[in-house]
């Protein structure tokens, strides 16, 4: 999914209008962005979030009186500068932005290459500016050149183009959305109405096959025979943000509710429940490593802790490192070590630096990421995708759940000769429904009502649930701004217990009924003795629910799958706490979705 914008008639405001428009389309993708301005054709584009483009724009102060723009969620071709839109012809006379897929691009590309055209990106889109340039070279006028080029295309597209010194924007719709905004002496184009809703509410929804010519005089809608057609202008009244959130109050809540779907996608086609095998096709042949080092930051680091604990249980020495520390204080490694970087965006600068350090020392690297062809995916020897879909809320939710499943799949792929995997596969297959059952019945909101005005919140767990405790605390502080800390349960008495009071609820993650669970029950009593209320996040297998003051229940499952479920309860707690406190949940202060600086 990508977003395109365009505007003409706004004079010196053009750049701001385009950038603001792209910002409201970020839900359609945010891993590269660009703009092109006329009448003197100027193109600026940049991999990374829109802010990266905004910096380039600030530095270059481009000028123009009309232009087009694009924000991209990469599916084919990595999200780097050269694949960012707009794309141009060889002479830089034509700039094009495109959303959709041009199915016959390979055929057109080889035809153009045979004529001597040099391509400078991996995208399907780039054939369009070259086609237009070829028509122009044949001497036809700009508009005819655009129509002739579009006539050649098969597939789905919304396209907008500008041509040097032609004070016009040309656009076409076939299968991908494109709307016109009608302003006072100006015209807007976009994939979706939010891009220009702050400037005009008068909108034309184009039909497939229609094309647009917009210039200083206004706009004309044409049919695919290039004949002008009458169109109706409608007045819309929705606010920009609502569209992408499907009616949820926040992206975070939407993404929490998307977890059953995300987990299903992560797991789909990767396990054979009949013969009990797990296969990650992306990894191919990778020998069993002597040791595994995970590098990651923030929430992904908590997934790394879980992954390392899982591999250690399987007999593989494994550690999780904070990427920012790893790059500067690299631990020793042998050549048989595999270094795994976990990064949602695949662009986290600290994680990239750590992976590069590992690579420079000659070991195999692997990226576990949500973003196809991201920098991490391209630079590492292997990439495994968690397939969670775009995550827009700054606080990671569904991607953490999918990272945990990804760690399981990776561990089983890497380590040979495991016992019967069917129980694990069964529990991973059941995760979507187990998560759904929590979403259907969670008591997290009631816990917030009861304890939402406390001094601080502590989270404890043992084994893989340490990762859940740390993640629960991070989520809580990120979005509620309340003081929260997570600890391995046994560490409490070595210091943090001094902080525990009747006004500091303790969330104890207790799953199963093994030694770790039993010991954690002891820790629950420890904090209760200091007057702290305890909320057990538990599957009911141990006595945690009976001992604790409150319970957040999760379905019974395997020891590997339980942390995913416990974490969902804590996500809901943090969300409802932040909501009750009126925090800006999707955009917490000082934080950014993907941290691309070290």
């Amino acid at each position: 999914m990508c977003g395109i914008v365009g505007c003409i008639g706004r004079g010196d405001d053009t750049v701001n209008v385009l950038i603001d428009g792209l910002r409201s389309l970020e839900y359609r993708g945010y891993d590269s962005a660009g703009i092109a301005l006329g009448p003197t054709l100027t193109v600026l584009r940049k991999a990374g979030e829109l802010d990266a483009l905004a910096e380039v724009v600030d530095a270059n102060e481009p000028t123009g009186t009309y232009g087009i723009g694009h924000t991209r969620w990469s599916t084919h071709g990595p999200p780097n500068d050269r694949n960012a839109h707009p794309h141009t012809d060889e002479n830089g006379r034509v700039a094009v932005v495109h959303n959709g897929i041009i199915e016959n691009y390979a055929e057109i590309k080889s035809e153009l290459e045979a004529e001597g055209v040099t391509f400078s990106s991996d995208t399907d889109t780039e054939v369009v500016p070259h086609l237009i340039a070829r028509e122009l070279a044949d001497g036809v006028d700009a508009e005819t050149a655009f129509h002739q080029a579009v006539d050649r295309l098969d597939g789905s597209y919304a396209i907008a183009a500008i041509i040097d010194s032609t004070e016009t924007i040309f656009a076409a719709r076939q299968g991908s959305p494109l709307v016109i905004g009608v302003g006072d002496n100006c015209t807007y184009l976009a994939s979706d109405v939010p891009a220009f809703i702050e400037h005009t509410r008068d909108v034309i929804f184009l039909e497939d096959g229609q094309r647009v010519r917009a210039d200083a005089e206004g706009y004309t809608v044409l049919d695919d025979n290039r004949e002008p057609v009458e169109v109706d202008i409608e007045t819309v009244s929705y606010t920009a943000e609502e569209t992408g959130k499907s009616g949820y109050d926040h992206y975070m809540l939407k993404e929490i509710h998307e977890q059953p779907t995300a987990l299903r996608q992560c797991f789909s086609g990767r396990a054979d429940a009949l013969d009990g095998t797990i296969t990650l096709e992306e990894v191919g042949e990778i020998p069993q490593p002597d040791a595994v080092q995970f590098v990651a930051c923030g929430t992904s680091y908590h997934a790394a802790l879980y992954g390392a604990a899982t591999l250690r249980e399987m007999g593989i020495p494994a550690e999780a490192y904070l990427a920012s520390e790893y790059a500067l204080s690299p631990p020793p490694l042998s050549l048989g070590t595999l270094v795994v970087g976990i990064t949602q965006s695949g662009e986290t600068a600290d994680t990239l630096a750590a992976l590069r350090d590992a690579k420079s020392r000659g070991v195999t690297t692997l990226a576990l990421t949500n973003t196809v062809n991201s920098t991490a995916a391209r630079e590492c020897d292997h990439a495994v995708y968690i397939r969670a879909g775009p995550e827009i809320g700054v606080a990671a939710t569904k991607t953490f759940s999918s990272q945990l499943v990804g760690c399981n799949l990776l561990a089983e792929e890497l380590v040979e000769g495991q016992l019967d995997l069917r129980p694990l596969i069964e529990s991973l297959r059941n995760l979507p429904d187990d998560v759904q059952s929590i979403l259907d019945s969670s008591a997290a909101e009631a816990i917030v009502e009861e304890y939402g005005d406390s001094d601080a919140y502590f989270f404890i767990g043992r084994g893989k649930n340490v990762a859940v405790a740390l993640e629960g605390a991070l989520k809580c502080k990120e979005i509620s701004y309340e003081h929260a800390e997570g600890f391995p349960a046994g560490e409490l008495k070595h210091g943090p217990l001094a902080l525990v009071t009747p006004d500091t609820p303790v969330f104890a993650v207790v799953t199963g009924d093994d030694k770790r669970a039993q010991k954690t029950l002891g820790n629950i009593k420890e904090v209760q003795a200091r007057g702290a209320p305890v909320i057990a996040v538990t599957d009911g297998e141990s006595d945690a629910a009976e001992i604790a003051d409150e319970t957040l229940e999760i379905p019974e499952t395997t020891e590997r799958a339980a942390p995913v479920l416990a974490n969902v309860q804590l996500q809901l707690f943090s969300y409802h706490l932040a909501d009750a406190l009126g925090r800006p949940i999707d955009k917490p202060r000082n934080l950014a979705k993907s941290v691309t600086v070290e």
Partner: protein
Amino acid sequence: MSTFSAQADSRPSSAVVLAAGEGIRLRPLTANRPKPMLPAGTRPILEHVLNALIDAGINNIHLVVGYQANRVRSHFGATYRDVPLTYHTQTNQLGSGHALLQAREGSTDSFLLVNGDQIIDSRIVEAVRTTHTDAAAALAVVEGPQAADYGAVTLDGSEITTLSEQPTSGGFRLFNAGVYAFTPEIFETLETISVDRGELPITDALQALIDDKNHTVAGVRTDHFWMDATHAWDLLSLSRALLRRGWVDPPAIDGGDCYVDETAKVHPDATLVGPVVVDSDAVIEAGAVVGPYAAIGASATVGAGAVLRDVVIDTDTSVGPNTTASELVAGQGCAIGGAFTAAGGPADVVLEEQVYPDVDLGGVLSDRVEVGGAATLEPGALVGPDAVLGDGVVVSGQVDAGSEVVR
């Protein structure tokens, strides 16, 4: 909120879909989701409705959601098949007219209105879209025996002359298929109507338009496929009808009537008897015989040696080995132990103190029912969500949500 877009050809291209109602008569299957999200084959009813609209050329869809709205939102998101979806919340379900009013804001052009819980052929939508020109409203009219449930209609040429909610004479006659086209004037009409019985049905507004000499209401007669599931057992006939038509998502194997998603795993020693659909990541173990008329949902499991025919097994449900089930509806996330038996109807089903005689129903398991080994469902049994049926129990009649049946 957003507007309903009109096109150069003036046919409505927007639709309002009513998906806010629970579907009380489908309880206990609707404990966690509204009726439009119940399975038709292996996909929600609403998914079929949206497909019909989009196939008929609708490119802007407004969903009125209410009961368990998040289930609709998280399933479909902001767009479906590249068509933008705008959600409108109806906090209290006060009838279809009230639901439509929730989607009023900013509407300036003609639009369609359809029910999100009834399966319609896209040609019905197309016919209403095309017919709606001069009349104040148009509605699709189908002939069948269901007039008593959906409102009988009389036509004079192409004009509707009477609508009667509960016709006195039964039998085969014309009835309202719940596919409408309106101009924005309908909102003003709705506002003039007094609310009776705490509800504002859209048919009251239609009646007002019929009574008003200045307006006509066009009836669009069609004989294309239309089907509603009123009771849980109707999900079986709905699934059968869809399977017969091949209205399922996965591709047909070798051009036959076994539809299997490419991520599903079917053991080479299992037998599929068409028509049958097996959705994504479902597993059919060795020796199982599945079909005819079996809908196996995404990530569902059919255990070794199980024999299933005429069943709807929803997403994530696992059916134990050596189960024999016929005319069974199982909701999401059920865990059914081995050697389970649901032999099929007919049965007399009692619902809300009403007896439905001779229903072809083996039984209904709602979401996340846990069934022990060798349990038996007597024909017509209805088991509520999260109930636990112990080993070897024989269950008949109704089992309440969350209850445990030990013997």
